[in-house]
């Protein structure tokens, strides 16, 4: 192994060597810089590999032939090697990326860059606090110099502000250092660690040292200077500052916090939290991309500082957690800054130019996912472990705040991604530079590589080795194929996986697997209708399906949560594909992530920090009657309820489902919502009834279910947009299912299961049908349609069957659900919520009737006369569903009998007796075959009667009616469709008042307002920034030490 001292020697040597060259030998200078950084990176990476694989031991490097503390020493351990790898590689890539700018500025700039990387490496390696100071000043000066690379005229002012603040930091550092030395007799960090200092005297010196290093981390709110640098500097420099400098500075702070001892850790925690939350909050108000990234950087570093503050509880996992977050952040942030250099405009919406290059768009998405700690990236494993450690040590407020901050960050990052995907592309774009593009790709590869490494190091197994996810990711490579080929492959994959896994599942899991995966394959049939490559669809969809497949497979809480996140991400990208779906996709992902964080917190709490935590263990917690059990229940339930869009968390659903593409709507409605039910099912199965403050939480769930069923239905009848109507109906239907589950009896669960199956079938069918209509008419507004029955008879049939099934009218399968429902509530003690359910049944009939009436009946519009039936590929799955609905109506026992027995095993009861074709419960009976036959026979007889009387009837032309003593000729005047249920609006319109939307809107508005207000502390005046730094230091000083010394 090459000693790490050569990293420093090479950096310095190269710097001086470049100085020796003539100004016109730019090529040679560049080569020297490249060689030096390449060498440094090679040494670092080879150390990292050797240390990580255990083939080398950590090395202490002494200088001057004298042992520490009498001479400066350096240390190369695993953490150092990792950090150096990140720093030097970032430096190397930045060199390549900034080559044109560097060349323009001359060889000196190259020297500055090399020395900056050297100094950052020194900052990481050194074990001497004064040496730390020297390297720190080198970093400051080099950064100040590199700021000049920017085309932005304001960069000079930013550099000056930076120097001003650095002066203050330097002063504090020096005073801190000398008094620490006085107290300790040593400048060596390890010696300081050996002699813990109290809060007086030397403690104050230590405080000055620590706070100076913290200020260097750009903590909110003393960080205006840093933001100006981020905004104005060359993006390559910002990438360096954000990825390499922040990383090194953080490690410097970490070394000293480690030395200072556990007493000081709360300081890191609190300052980190303030920074994380504050910076992310202010990020909400940003429109400039680089400044936004700056806020995000500050936030992320704050988060790592929080992790630093938890080193006492993280133990061995400390490096894994801190490294996971820090490295992922470095890679992602560098990548984003590099992309920002390729984007000509500075407004967030200007990133729409990325659409011209799908690979960059993919990179953008990847970096965002990395920043947010989504699977399969390293940050995910780290956040998971962090959450568990925090929960295990009862640091729940910290956990809560961290998750809150992450959610806010997700808000602005995903909003941004939405801009990139959906905003108009304002400029004719010349194309991206090849080197810049290559550098971004390198960062992306690095991020995925980190994800793999962290996965390999995880006790939970590597997500990137999970077959479904690999299969989904393979579609990224297959993107150039035509859509039909990918579709075929996707269907084969889904069916193959179900076939492969199904034999091992119990009936409950089997039903969900069939609905989610085999059901997904059926819906995918409709995707054959789309021509071309259909870029981005298959990776997104397959990630969602991979998540679902893994969700059903999950044995441990980790597997479950990872799968949950995967399906959330996949579905987000899927929803975002819709034309007008930008805001809705955003609210979807925010609610989903909020829910996911609740789930994370719930699992962390449940496990008490012990991992891996099998899902079955939830039962043990419930049985033990621990006081935390109801809280676990509550958190998990909230997480699942956001996914089922239960009332209160429902506002994302209508837009998200309505604006999605034709074949996406059934996926996200028919399939995705079931993930929430699946979660709830597991939760209730394992934890049963839980009470909090004397309130039975399942009772609460019953009410939420009933309210969702009612409100969803009421809102649905007021919709003019057909897909929105269906979307609200989903809220209502999920309410029924939730209601059934929460009844906590055998029949209730059977009811929920019937809703899982039925809702999948008829909602998928209806969405496909309405989607087909929309593709022909190019509108979703029902009053603009009408009379389409003659043009789209097959679609009409599927809608007809769909609404009969859904409204529960015999003889189709929906009735079975209603019958089970009555039997279930009969054996339950809960009566009041039933009222709401009773009411929502007929109301559902209203909106369903409206759906079929205003679209297919009434007067055909002139502009629709020449339309054709929907594509055969859209109809194919619908006809399958029709057949299934009729089959399921006649033979429900095919599916239900086994599940019934399974549920019976759980409750220890047999609620239904299956004799022949008849089903008998404690209270009543139901013979689906008989019903079908009786109705069929009567229908045929009456029809025959009519035909006998009226066999010559011929279809007359449109408008063969008399209306107001006129024969109308304009369909618009006679199509009674808009505001169809006007009386209802008059009577119950108050229910339409968007209280929930207003509530969440109020929260986001106040967040934005406070962000916009708070960020005005960054006046742009360097002097004010300097004063803020001192205020920050003094304030923390007074709080931390005020009472002691």
């Amino acid at each position, binding site marked *: 192994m090459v000693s790490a001292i050569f990293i420093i020697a090479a950096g310095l040597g190269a710097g001086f060597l470049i100085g020796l060259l003539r100004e016109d030998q730019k090529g040679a200078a560049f080569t020297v810089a490249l060689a030096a950084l390449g060498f440094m990176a090679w040494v670092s990476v080879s150390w990292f590999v050797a240390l990580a694989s255990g083939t080398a031991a950590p090395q202490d490097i002494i200088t001057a032939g004298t042992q520490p503390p009498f001479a400066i020493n350096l240390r190369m351990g695993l953490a150092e090697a990792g950090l150096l790898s990140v720093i030097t590689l970032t430096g190397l890539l930045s060199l390549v990326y900034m080559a044109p700018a560097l060349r323009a500025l001359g060889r000196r700039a190259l020297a500055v860059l090399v020395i900056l990387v050297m100094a950052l490496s020194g900052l990481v390696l050194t074990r001497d606090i004064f040496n730390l100071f020297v390297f720190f000043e080198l970093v400051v000066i080099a950064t100040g110099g590199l700021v000049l690379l920017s085309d932005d005229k304001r960069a000079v002012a930013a550099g000056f502000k930076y120097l001003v603040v650095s002066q203050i930091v330097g002063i504090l550092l020096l005073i801190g250092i000398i008094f620490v030395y006085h107290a300790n007799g040593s400048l060596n960090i390890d010696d300081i660690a050996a002699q813990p200092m109290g809060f007086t005297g030397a403690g104050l010196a230590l405080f000055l040292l620590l706070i100076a290093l913290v200020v260097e981390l750009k903590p909110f709110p003393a960080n205006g200077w840093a933001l100006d640098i981020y905004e104005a500097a060359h993006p390559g420099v910002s990438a360096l500052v954000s990825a390499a400098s922040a990383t090194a500075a953080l490690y410097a702070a970490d070394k000293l916090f480690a030395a200072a001892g556990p007493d000081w850790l709360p300081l890191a925690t609190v300052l980190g939290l303030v920074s994380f939350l504050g910076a992310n909050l202010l990020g909400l108000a940003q429109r400039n991309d680089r400044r936004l990234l700056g806020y995000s950087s500050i936030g992320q570093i704050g988060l790592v500082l929080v992790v630093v503050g938890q080193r006492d509880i993280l133990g061995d996992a400390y490096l894994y957690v801190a490294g996971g977050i820090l490295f992922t952040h470095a890679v992602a942030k560098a990548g984003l800054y590099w992309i920002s250099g390729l984007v000509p405009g500075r407004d967030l919406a200007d990133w729409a130019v990325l659409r011209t290059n799908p690979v960059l768009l993919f990179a953008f998405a990847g970096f965002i996912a990395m920043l947010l700690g989504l699977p399969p990236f390293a940050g995910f494993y780290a956040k998971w472990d962090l959450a568990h450690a925090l929960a295990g040590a009862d640091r729940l407020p910290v956990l809560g705040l961290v998750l809150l901050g992450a959610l806010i960050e997700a808000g602005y990052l995903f909003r941004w991604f939405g801009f990139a995907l959906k905003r108009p592309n304002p400029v004719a774009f010349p194309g991206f530079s090849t080197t810049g593009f290559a550098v971004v790709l390198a960062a992306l590869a690095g991020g995925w590589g980190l994800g793999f490494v962290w996965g390999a190091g995880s006790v939970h197994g590597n997500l990137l080795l999970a077959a479904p996810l690999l299969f989904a990711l393979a579609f990224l490579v297959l993107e150039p194929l035509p859509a039909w080929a990918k579709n075929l492959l996707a269907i084969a994959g889904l069916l193959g996986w179900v076939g492969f896994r199904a034999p091992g599942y119990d009936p409950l899991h089997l039903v969900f697997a069939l609905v989610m995966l085999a059901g997904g394959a059926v819906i995918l049939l409709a995707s054959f209708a789309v021509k071309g490559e259909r870029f981005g669809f298959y990776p997104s969809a397959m990630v969602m399906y991979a998540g679902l497949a893994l969700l059903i497979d999950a044995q441990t809480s980790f597997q479950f949560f990872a799968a949950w996140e995967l399906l959330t991400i996949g579905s987000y990208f899927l929803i975002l594909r819709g034309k007008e779906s930008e805001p809705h996709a955003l609210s979807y992902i925010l609610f989903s992530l909020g829910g996911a964080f609740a789930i994370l917190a719930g699992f962390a709490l449940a496990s008490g920090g012990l991992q891996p935590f099998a899902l079955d263990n939830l039962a043990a917690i419930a049985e033990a009657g621990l006081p935390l059990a109801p809280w676990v229940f509550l958190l998990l339930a909230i997480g699942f309820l956001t996914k089922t869009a239960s009332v209160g968390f429902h506002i994302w659903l209508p837009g998200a489902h309505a604006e999605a593409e034709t074949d996406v709507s059934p996926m996200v409605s028919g399939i995705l919502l079931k993930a929430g039910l699946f979660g709830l099912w597991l939760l209730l199965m394992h934890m049963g009834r839980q009470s909090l403050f004397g309130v039975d939480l399942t009772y609460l769930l019953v009410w939420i279910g009933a309210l969702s069923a009612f409100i969803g239905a009421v809102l649905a009848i007021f919709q003019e947009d057909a897909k929105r109507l269906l979307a609200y109906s989903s809220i209502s239907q999920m309410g029924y299912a939730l209601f059934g589950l929460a009844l906590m009896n055998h029949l209730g669960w059977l009811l929920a299961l019937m809703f899982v199956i039925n809702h999948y079938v008829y909602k998928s069918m209806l969405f496909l049908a309405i989607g087909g209509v929309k593709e022909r008419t190019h509108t979703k507004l029902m009053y603009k349609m009408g009379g389409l029955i003659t043009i789209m008879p097959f679609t009409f049939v599927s809608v007809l069957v769909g609404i009969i099934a859904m409204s529960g009218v015999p003889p189709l399968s929906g009735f079975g659900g*209603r019958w089970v429902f009555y039997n279930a509530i009969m054996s339950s003690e809960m009566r009041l919520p039933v009222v709401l359910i009773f009411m929502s049944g*007929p109301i559902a009939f209203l909106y369903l009737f409206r759906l079929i009436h205003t679209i297919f009946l009434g007067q055909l519009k002139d502009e629709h006369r020449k339309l054709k039936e929907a594509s055969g590929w859209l109809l194919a799955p619908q006809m399958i569903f029709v057949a299934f609905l009729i089959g399921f109506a006649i033979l429900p026992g095919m599916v239900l009998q086994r599940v019934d027995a399974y549920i019976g095993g759980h409750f220890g009861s047999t609620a239904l007796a299956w004799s022949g074709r008849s089903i008998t419960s404690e209270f009543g009976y139901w013979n689906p075959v008989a*019903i079908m036959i*009786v109705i069929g026979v009567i229908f045929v007889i009456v029809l025959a009667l009519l035909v006998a009387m009226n066999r010559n009837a011929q279809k007359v032309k449109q408008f063969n009616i008399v209306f107001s003593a006129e024969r109308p000729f304009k369909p618009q005047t006679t199509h009674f469709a808009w505001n169809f249920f006007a009386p209802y609006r008059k009577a119950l319109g108050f229910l339409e008042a968007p209280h929930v939307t207003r509530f969440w809107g109020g929260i986001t508005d106040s967040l934005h307002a406070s962000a916009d207000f708070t960020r005005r502390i960054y006046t742009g005046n360097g002097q004010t920034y300097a004063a803020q730094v001192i205020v920050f230091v003094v304030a923390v000083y007074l709080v931390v030490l005020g009472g002691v010394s």
Partner: protein
Amino acid sequence: MSFEWVQIAYAALTVFIVINYGLIMTAVVQKIGARVGGRYGIPVWQNYIDLVKNIALRSKISHGVMFYLGPVFRLTGGIGLLLFVPTIYGSVMHQNFAFAGDLILALYFVFFGTLGMALGAGESGHPHAAIGVSRGLAQVTAAELPLALAVFAISLQYQTLSITEIVAAQQGGLFNWTLFTNPIATLAAMFALVGTMMRAPFDVVVAPQEIPIGPPTEYHSAYLALMQTNRVLFPVAKTVIYMNLFFGGASNWGEFAVKVFAIYMVSVLVGVVHPRFRVEQSIRFFLKWGLPVGILAILVV
């Protein structure tokens, strides 16, 4: 209970009796109404005349498949409702096809005809039809709510969903009727009865003055004949359910005739003394008066 072929004949007999009973009863009711109003009124066989006349008329007009099928759905719904409920308690002949399903089947099958009717009327393309459907559906959701609650209440009371068992539980004297054992539920159910009989004050759905006759506007001749048949059959079928659930059922056709007539008259009597509600007014009415009673019913069981 299982199926035997002879049941088809019995069922046909039930349908025949009920249709005739309905034709006469509705005419009688109209006649009484006319007499109360000081008019002479129609002859009691007027319904037969109308029916025969409409059957005899031949139409060559159809607005489309759903239009054609609408009356079929409608009448199927009426007959089916009748046949899924035992008409005469204790009579093997008139158990009909109750073995196919219980009370829940009957409750939900009500919508079958409504749906078909609405669809057919919708295809006619006449705005009055659509307006009538809109009003009717809107009103019925609110009106049915008290019934649903009342049904829930008495199924809890009798711990069964089987109509036969509910009737059985009411045998053995006047005071075993649900009317007396559970007057609140009965009251709630009666709200629903008056609300769904398409009589004043809840008849804005068919409002003859403003939207000729509402949903069936475009129907004529044989279509209308089927619907007329249903219009006499369906109220009776529905009243039978009320009779079975709340008024002790009927153990013979005489009792049947009296009880059905009496229950039917309730809605008639309410109708003659009240002006017509607009739809939103009736929705509010049912939510304000019917709903609390229904809730009370399920709470006190």
